[in-house]
């Protein structure tokens, strides 16, 4: 009997019948199915990754190969000219507008992430530890601000920023991105704080530490990995954001990379090689960040609400 169970579990792909076929035959069908599954999976993977590979190829091609019909998959001359164009002006006079926008992106995404973390982590801790009035409603309210359609919010923000002189400034973007990331930070961090036993703080307070010290000296250090993961997610969101960036900035000095890259397709002829190169340069940090938080992905993409 035991042997039989092992066999069925091992050949888990094989369908059970009233009269199961003999061992070897059964297993062969199992392996056939396994191979079929692997092939299907590989096909999915190829389709999913092809656009990225194609963009990478395009960014490395000479222009005549970029516009070649039919498309050239393997036979093309490799050049790094497009990458040079991303950073240096065509006529060789200093940095390009794209390079400036990358710098703006780094500044805006970085600062807004720090701001969201500084405001969000203490709030998350407080929501996790204290019995507050209408706590559930407050948390629901916080999350609901995250669901608002950006095009809708951007109309009054635009008017408000115009009056406050925040339009076309990096500070304006930093504030809106921090507000945009705050619900996420609070929800995700609350999950991490919930996992640190409150008894640690109680013990510290019995030792004579105040509540704040208990948080600062004992809980906070335990939260560092969670904070790092949350911050990386916030960084990715701010880095990729487009709607607020395009409507709240108009000059090269404040514009972040997404609208700047989108601006490349404005004219009648589009330099796809340059578009590909700038998209690749822009995507590399995100992929790196995503790799860093791969363990927290499920919690991250669902606002920390579902944990793995």
């Amino acid at each position, binding site marked *: 009997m035991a042997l039989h*169970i092992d066999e*069925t579990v091992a050949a*888990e*792909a094989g*369908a*059970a019948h009233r009269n199961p076929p003999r061992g070897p035959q059964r297993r062969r069908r199992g392996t056939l199915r396994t191979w079929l*599954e*692997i092939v299907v*999976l590989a096909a*999915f*993977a190829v389709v*999913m990754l092809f*656009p990225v590979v*194609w963009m990478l190829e395009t960014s490395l091609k000479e222009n005549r190969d970029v516009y070649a*019909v*039919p*498309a050239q998959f393997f036979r093309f001359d490799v050049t790094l000219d497009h990458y040079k164009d991303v950073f240096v002006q065509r006529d060789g006079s200093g940095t390009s507008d794209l390079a400036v926008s990358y710098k703006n992106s780094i500044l805006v995404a970085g600062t807004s992430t720090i701001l969201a973390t500084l405001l969000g982590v*203490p*709030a998350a801790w*407080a929501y996790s530890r*204290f019995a*507050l009035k209408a706590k559930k409603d*407050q948390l629901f309210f*916080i*999350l*609901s*601000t995250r*669901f*608002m*359609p950006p095009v*809708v*919010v951007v*109309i009054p*923000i*635009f*008017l408000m920023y115009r009056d406050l002189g925040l339009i076309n400034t990096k500070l304006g973007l930093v*504030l809106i991105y921090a*507000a945009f990331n*705050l619900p996420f930070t609070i929800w995700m961090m609350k999950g991490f704080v919930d996992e640190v036993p409150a008894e640690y703080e109680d013990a*510290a307070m019995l*030792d004579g530490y*105040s*509540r*704040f*010290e208990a948080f600062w000296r004992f809980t906070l250090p335990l939260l560092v990995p969670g904070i790092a993961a949350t911050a990386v997610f916030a960084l990715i969101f701010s*880095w990729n*954001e487009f709607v607020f960036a395009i409507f709240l900035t108009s000059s090269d000095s404040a514009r972040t990379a997404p609208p700047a*890259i*989108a601006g490349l397709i404005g004219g009648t002829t589009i330099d*796809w090689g340059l578009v590909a190169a700038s*998209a690749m340069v822009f*995507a590399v940090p995100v992929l790196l960040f*995503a*790799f860093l938080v791969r363990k927290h*992905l*499920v919690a991250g*993409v*669902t606002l920390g*609400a*579902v944990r793995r």
Partner: protein
Amino acid sequence: MATTISPAEPAAPLVAPPAARRFRWLGDRRLSAMFIAPALALLLFLSVFPLLWALYLSFTNYSATRDTPAQWVWFDNYRDILTSATVHQRALTTLMYVIGAVGLQTVLGFSIAYLISRRVRGRGLMTTLFLVPMMLSPVVVGLFWRFMLDTQFGVVNSLLNSLGFGSVEWLTKQRTALLSLIVVDTWQWTPFIMLIALAGLTAVPKYLYEAASIDRASEWFRFRHITLPLVWPLLLIAVLFRAIEAFRLFDLVYILTNGGPGVSTETLSFHVYKVAFLGFDTGAASAYGILMVLVVIVLAQFYLRYLEKLRST
């Protein structure tokens, strides 16, 4: 910062000294207020206040380019929107897009997750590779695909030609443009559903399958009565989340088709943008936006209700 109240006392032998009780003045109540208030203040300033402002504007005929003060017009904007044939058309486009894209993503994402969950080796690597599209900016994704779907030198048509099919005018024909939008959105967000489904699938306890195989349950029976019921709640959350996101989609439409050709890919979000920033009919756009927010709130309610249910089990 606060001054130290009590200096460290000389330690008694073998007994740990009581810690210096600094920040004593920070009681629980004051501490929680201090920790939460700044976060709520920022949200009130940049989320609630703008929304209330939009609510006010939605009852007026204000225009951001004219300097005339706003005139109160009561529910005229709302009446116009709800009875306008144009808006009904946009709502239909949005509905087709949301159902098409989210449906496709769910089927594909779950299938991929199911296949991955049956593999033992290379699971982590495969998951990471599949997640790449999701991490990219909508701008980058839109540009990737605009290039690939180009009628003349796009690689998709190139492949179709070499396989003996004719070229397709992906982004310039009314019917295929919406399809292209759905395809691109599916490409980007299938990994999301896959990720959630995979989390659910790997959490199914093994002993259930073992019990089922003792009973010689068929593969389909196992899937239908063990796998699906256990993964379903999580999958539903992913679907709701995606539905909310797809409903408010703007950037991809802007980059990929700019609402065209004609108005065939003009979703509600894109229409709001046109009314607000090309027509500068700020009052009407605000009313429009408020209606969209109401839809999102209803969807979000379902999302949170399921979340609550899932957490309590």
